């Protein structure tokens, strides 16, 4: 097995009396695509929020194996450090772009930390020093690179909010990539995409994990995406893990079929 990037150990998240995630352990390897699936309300997005610092888990730990900083406990970090220091960057189920800014600017904002350091907290930038200009140039080049790769370059100067849903999803992924993530967490990236767009998404996800060695963690309902690209699938129901394995293993798991289709229809495996 390839080396582990993220290890979630016995994670539990309670909201008052409600247990959204119960004793969940998952490992995400480098350069592979790991999917989290499950019926609505299974706790998938809550799980993402726990990983990326938006919620503080009630119990358990989330450990990121960073090549430079060593093991980092994400559940004990301030939320912005999860992306900045640990390299775990997420997208959102309901797209969160900066709608009045151009697509290019969306990608430049993602490089804020590098640019802010180069501008010496605005002092060097205020006087247009060469060092800052070079950093700005590098940021533009990186943005251009991802825009070209995601076929967005023609739209670079358009306001992000004016674009179609599928395009906005791609922009959000491009923006996340500009943070140079080690682990990319995508929350339903195929929602609202047409078949051609989701085929392109499959290709992109495989490219990112295979060519760039990025770990990809995917929440998805679209089984065309999940079953085709996932190396490993983890199935959640009511906050607990009910099955885990390769796409084939999961597809044939009686627990999964039960969770998705109910007990009576247990024979109807194809529909899953």
């Amino acid at each position, binding site marked *: 097995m390839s080396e582990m990037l993220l290890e979630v150990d016995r994670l539990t998240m309670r909201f008052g009396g409600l247990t959204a995630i119960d004793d969940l352990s998952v490992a995400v390897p480098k350069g592979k695509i790991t999917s989290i699936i499950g019926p609505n309300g299974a706790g998938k997005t809550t799980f993402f929020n726990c990983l*990326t*610092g*938006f919620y503080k888990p009630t119990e358990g730990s989330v450990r990121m194996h960073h090549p430079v900083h060593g093991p980092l406990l994400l559940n004990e970090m*301030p*939320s*912005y*450090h*999860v*992306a*900045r*220091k640990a390299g775990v*960057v*997420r*997208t*959102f189920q309901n797209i*969160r*772009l*900066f*709608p*009045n*800014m*151009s697509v*290019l*600017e969306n990608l*430049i*904002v*993602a490089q*804020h*930390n590098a*640019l*802010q350091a*180069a*501008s010496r*907290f*605005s002092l060097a*930038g*205020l006087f*247009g*020093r*060469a060092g800052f*200009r*070079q950093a*700005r*140039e590098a940021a*533009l080049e990186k943005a*251009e690179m991802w825009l070209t790769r995601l076929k967005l*370059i*023609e739209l*670079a*100067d358009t306001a992000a909010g004016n674009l179609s849903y599928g395009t906005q999803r791609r922009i959000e992924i491009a*923006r*996340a990539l500009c*943070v140079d993530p080690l682990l990319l967490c995508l929350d339903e990236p195929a929602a609202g995409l047409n078949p051609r767009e989701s085929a392109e998404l499959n290709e992109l996800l495989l490219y990112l994990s295979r060519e760039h060695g990025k770990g990809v963690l995917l929440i998805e309902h679209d089984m065309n995406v999940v079953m085709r690209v996932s190396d490993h699938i983890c199935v959640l129901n009511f906050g607990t893990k009910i099955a885990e394995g390769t796409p084939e293993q999961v597809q044939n798991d009686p627990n999964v079929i039960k969770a998705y289709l109910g007990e009576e229809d247990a024979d109807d495996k194809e529909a899953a």
Partner: protein
Amino acid sequence: MTTHAHHLPNVASRLKDATGIALVSLLLGVPMIGLKTVDAGGALAIATRWPWLLAFVATMFVGRLVLQFVLDHVKLNKAKRARTRPEIGATRPWLKWIGYAVVGFALVLPIAFSGNRYVVDTATTVLIYVMLGWGLNVVVGLAGLLDLGYVAFYAVGAYTYGLLSTHFGWGFWETLPVAGAAAATFGVILGWPTLRLRGDYLAIVTLGFGEIIRLILVNWTDFSGGPNGIGSIPRPTFFGLPFSPDSDAGPTFASFFHLEYSPEHRVMFLYYLILVLALLTNLFVSRMRKLPVGLAWEAVREDEVACKALGMNVTNVKLSAFAIGAMLGGFAGVFFAARQGFISPESFVFSESATILAIVVLGGMGSQLGVVIASVLLVLLPELGRDFSEYRMLMFGAAMILIMVWRPGGLIAHREPTYRLGKQGAKA
């Protein structure tokens, strides 16, 4: 000079160049500085001033070295800049030209209306609001933080000058940076605990802060003079020359420039002073907006959660907007105190905050030119409505409503992007 574009000349050539300049200044300096005619009992005699000459030559030598050093660095910086991508013009260049036209008009206004003190005074008031509007624009327009207590920072600036000048005899220019720093500090003190609040909640807290500052000024009589305020605040001087009819202490502005004394000199000077302060504010804010921190302000306005997910320390971004906005308000406060010569808590009531906020919203969130137009409207409309006495505020309100119906995004809702690629091959 043999300066090549990309590397700096070596030390030897620098010294050689400076020595050349020193020799020239020595030749010129011997008759001009080295020798001096003195009146020795009716006859003219020549005295020598060699130490002066030496100092002159040394100054020229060092000055040339420093000048050359600075020039070379500027050149080097430019050369590096040329290698980065070319700047792409604005999407609406005519907005920029309107801006230049407004500045040009502002420059000639006191000359065109030189006989009319009322016009210049009103224009000065407009400019104070323009400056406050530009300051608040950083907080509300760019960072999207609704601040209803902005006048508190204005008050901090004004009282800093009032107190430092009356108690310690500080001048206008020394106080300016101190007052800016004091206001920024208050911005951070207010911002630190409250910036985690959003929208309406932040608005209410800032509203409360504005009132707290005012109530402290009213009630802490020993410190601020209470409701009586602070009087006889010294007026700003023209590099040390006071604007007064006659003075035993030294030359006045009028006597120094051999002009007839006129109270209008001060009015014009104050006008140009606030004009310079406002233009500096504009330059500063526009540059900041183009920097990463400016883009981050706008990103926080657009979506705070997304900013966090991208690894941005949202609290720091907001605090910087708050502190810079407060600092600019503090500068305006110093000018206000210096212009009026008298300040009291009555000048810093909530309706001032509301007016400044109205200027920003009416002008178009984040638009610099919009703030100017809105300030002119908001100061002039009540002035023009004087003849209608009690209906004046009614008219004012109606005008505001009409403008917001006509242009819901503010007068200038256009946002100029900070970064552009210029569409693949079309330009650049």
